[in-house]
């Protein structure tokens, strides 16, 4: 059963073509890692999945909704597809608990007491139950990112997209965030992760996608082989660069 399907998707920003003829299927429960040089279209691809960017042509089916159809309610897609950003994007005017409860309260209109209990459980899961009353500005980057993950999980989404979740973090903060992501993956969440964390891609990912210049050059379930012995020349060049720097 597929969760996300790209069929011949193109995306233009003005004259610039950010995505070129993308075909990709993500099944439910799959963890797909996307890597590639900057400007290759990884983030754009991710942002299309929850409608932050609209595709120019082709077909994109997410959770059985057609995103190219103008009648599709984007807010309904986004309720079911969470997103974790590179720069966290926590609500600066709300405390940690409110950041997590706002979605279920306002968008899902669920019972407040129940939502708060769940939010506290989620904060516990990401190891931040003691920070419930803090504001985002008072937390470290790694802590903010874990709150952002809890905020996303609070909506009980069918899939979560991660857009370079550890790229803005200090090295020692990265481990905590990756641990939380691994936990979520083990619970069967469908995940699409744009990252350069090769450890995560190898040990948690079921599949690897390599992008360059708006195109998918590699889409492989053999993650270890992709890193150890890449066949595609552009992927080979990229991997040698990130390993030998």
């Amino acid at each position, binding site marked *: 059963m597929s969760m996300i399907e790209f069929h011949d998707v193109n995306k233009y920003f003005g004259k610039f073509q950010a995505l070129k003829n993308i075909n990709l299927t993500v099944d439910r429960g799959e963890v797909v890692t996307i890597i590639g040089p900057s400007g290759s279209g990884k983030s754009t691809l991710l942002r299309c999945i929850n409608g*932050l960017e609209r595709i120019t042509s082709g077909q994109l089916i997410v959770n059985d909704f057609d995103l190219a159809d103008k009648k599709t309610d984007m807010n309904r897609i*986004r309720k079911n597809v969470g*997103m974790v950003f590179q*720069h966290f994007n926590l609500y600066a005017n*709300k405390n940690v608990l409110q950041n997590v409860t706002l979605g279920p309260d306002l968008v899902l209109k669920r019972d407040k007491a129940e939502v708060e209990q769940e939010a506290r459980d989620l904060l516990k899961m990401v190891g931040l139950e003691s920070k419930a009353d803090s504001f985002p500005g008072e937390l470290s980057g790694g802590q903010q990112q874990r709150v*952002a993950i809890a905020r996303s999980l609070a*909506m009980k989404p069918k899939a979560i997209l991660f857009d370079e979740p550890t790229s803005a973090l200090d090295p020692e903060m990265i481990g905590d965030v990756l641990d939380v992501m691994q936990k979520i993956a083990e619970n069967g969440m469908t995940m699409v992760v744009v990252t350069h964390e090769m450890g995560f891609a190898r040990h948690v990912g079921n599949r690897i996608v390599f992008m360059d210049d708006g195109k998918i050059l590699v889409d492989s379930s053999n993650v270890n082989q992709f890193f150890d012995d890449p066949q595609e020349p552009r992927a080979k060049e990229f991997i040698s660069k990130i390993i030998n720097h």
Partner: protein
Amino acid sequence: MWSILTNNWNALLSGLGYTLAASILALIGSLIIGTLFALMEISPFKALRIIGRIYVEVVRNIPLLVITLAFYVIVPRFIIKIDGFTAGTIGLLIYTSAFIAETVRAGIEAVPSGQMEGARSIGMSYTQAMRQIIFPQAFKIVIPPLGNQFINLVKNSSVLAFVAGFDLMYQGKLIAATTFSTFDTYLIVGVLYLILTMPLSYLMRYLEKKWVTA
């Protein structure tokens, strides 16, 4: 000087009252209209953005006196009879609203774009995201420049004097013309304006301390 104050106390007090009334009405009105045009300027719809932009650019680039005279001369002749106080207050309101629109727009745009994306990504509508996330943050940013606009508004209300608006400046003009004590009269008028604007200044500073640093 003391005699000018005591002999014309009633006229000055009434002028102060008219100035205060015009300022409060124009302040509330321009805040509402200015915010509406700010929302139009940042709207996802191009037509609304263009209308907002035209309004702001036309209104803020015409002198206050010209706008006020337009309401005093043209509106009564062709549309509806209004007195000087009404024409002056409307002119002041319209003129100030363009500056408030620009202030509020800049405040909203100063909130990082990630805040809107974070809100939309969990399924909030544009209106929900604006109300819950963007406005509260923009509000804090906007308080200090908004204070400037409010103080300017109170001082600009002296434009009512040109259209027989019975405000403080109008009474000052009358008193100066009848007593020939131009210097003393305008000194008193100046002090009375300070009495209006200084508390406003301090109020804005207080709000700034209370909300901006929180």
